[in-house]
């Protein structure tokens, strides 16, 4: 029989979905993403986390959310889920945003923007506002198309540029390597290792590897 692990993703946005799918693919394990839910901010995830925890009794679920302003990941996890976590639920937190993970593959990200690698932060998890830092780096890029796609127009209330998700997403799919990135982001490393070592339960029985 195959060792395929069918898994459902629950994420805040498209970029998080792309990053998770890429990690699962690069893990070398036989993950099969059955569906991806959420994609409308953290509110949905937070509201539904107990339901997702219940659902995880029947199928593996991988949640990824951004830490944002919360002090640290364990506090967020406790605040969100105050009942015992189902072993089939992988609940991961990007510190502070998934953008930290994206930037953590420093050489590839520098090449994507066409800037020097030493401009990319060596501790992306320590950044207060990773999206802002990322956009600051984009503004240093000489690639005009990229700047126009990723950075909001002057005076805009938009948080990101008009083609942010697709362009950054494309970078992740094509050039981002989790094994490189995990060296610079502790939260990514923990998430990746959880994905590498995950064994789904079915009806209380640990599945054979």
């Amino acid at each position, binding site marked *: 029989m195959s060792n395929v692990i069918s898994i459902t993703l629950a994420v805040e*946005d*498209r970029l998080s979905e792309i990053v998770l799918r890429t990690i699962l693919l690069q893990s070398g394990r036989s993950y099969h993403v059955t569906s991806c839910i959420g*994609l*409308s*901010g953290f509110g949905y995830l937070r509201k539904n986390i107990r339901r997702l925890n219940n659902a995880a009794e029947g199928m593996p679920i991988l949640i990824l959310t951004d830490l944002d302003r919360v002090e640290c990941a364990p506090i967020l996890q406790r605040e969100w889920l105050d009942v015992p976590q189902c072993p089939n639920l992988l609940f991961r937190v990007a510190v502070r945003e998934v953008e930290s993970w994206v930037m953590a593959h420093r050489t590839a990200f520098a090449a994507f923007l066409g800037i020097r690698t030493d401009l990319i932060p060596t501790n992306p998890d320590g950044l207060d506002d990773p999206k802002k830092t990322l956009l600051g780096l984009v503004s240093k890029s000489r690639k005009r*198309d990229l700047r*126009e*796609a990723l950075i*909001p*127009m*002057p*005076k*805009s*209330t*938009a*948080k*990101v*540029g*008009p*083609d*942010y*998700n*697709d362009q950054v997403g494309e970078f992740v799919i094509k050039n981002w390597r989790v094994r490189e990135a995990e060296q610079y982001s502790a939260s990514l490393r923990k998430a990746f290792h959880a994905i590498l070592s995950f064994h789904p339960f079915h009806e209380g029985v640990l599945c054979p590897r």
Partner: protein
Amino acid sequence: MIVSRILLKNWRNFRHAEAELGRRMFLVGPNASGKSNFLDAFRFLRDVAKPGGGLQKAVEDRGGISKIRCLAARKEPQVEIEVHLSNAHDQKACWKYAISLKQDSRGHRRPYLDYEKVWKDGDLILNRPDRYDQKDDRRLTQTHLEQISANYAFREIAEFFESICYLHLVPQLLRHQNAFSGPAMRDDPFGRNFLEKLAQTTEGTRKSRLKKIEKALQLAVPQLKELSVTKDDAGKPHLAAIYEHWRLRGARQQEEEFSDGTLRLVGFLWSLLEGDSLLLMEEPELYLHTAIIRRLPGIIWRIQAKKKRQTLISTHSYDLLLDRGIGGEEVLLLIPDKEGTNIRTASSIDDVRVLIESGISVAEATLPRTAPRDIDQLSLFNE
């Protein structure tokens, strides 16, 4: 060139409204608030400017001035449209065109110009009625915009208006062309003759566009391959593609067999790729899956960015407006009132601006405002 500002007076739902426009704008508002009527102001200018068009025809096609005029209009009966054209949204207007219409108070109720004005770089270069109009008031039944012999000094804007593009493709019309016989509508706004338009495009351009469309369609309908335009024995054009299934070669399908969503997406993408002038779109989300709708703003932006073209999009879609790349300044809220509909840029409303700046999406910040006020009472419909 883009329309950077529009002012409407007594135009359909709008007794007095004005809006600043950027390269990409989303119109949101309750049903019957005037989204289509707002877009129609641009179509009206196109209808006046285009060959075979003209003021009389444009008004007649809309049922006369009394149909165009805002129901809330009272003392001042004239209908006015003014547009400012700029090279970019944050630049000063290089052209302004303003038109005001009245109709004969008796007889044929023929529409005539109350005024027609053109400014170039701030200078008034056309100001009608002029002395010739005063001598011969029949001249006021035509704009200078529509006359090649009279629009020499501002041909640029006449051509701009003429090339304004509108598409609200209705898949059923395209699929069952024969069932909807009868005279075609001018400019085919609902895509009944969309296939003829495809067939008339030069082969190279058509192939290159269809290739791009096919690539984009991969997102939505990955089974669909080799999109092309073919002609049947009677010379009638058809949209064809291979629909892959369990058989090795797949099945050859034509537009009759395409799904509503596929047809609408093809029409939507084609109109994006066609031309580089102002594009007006009605509810591009119709018939499409949520996951596709969420990607439309990015797709629209990517295609228009290369062409520097402007798009005005009416929508009710929460998913479309979820995109974090949409700024509050790109959303126009149409707010109906007894005295006609008002237009506000979402970011100019303090509450909305605060929400968006706190990280709430444009969808959450604006759409609840456009819901009917007494929505709960819909339960009254229950017997």
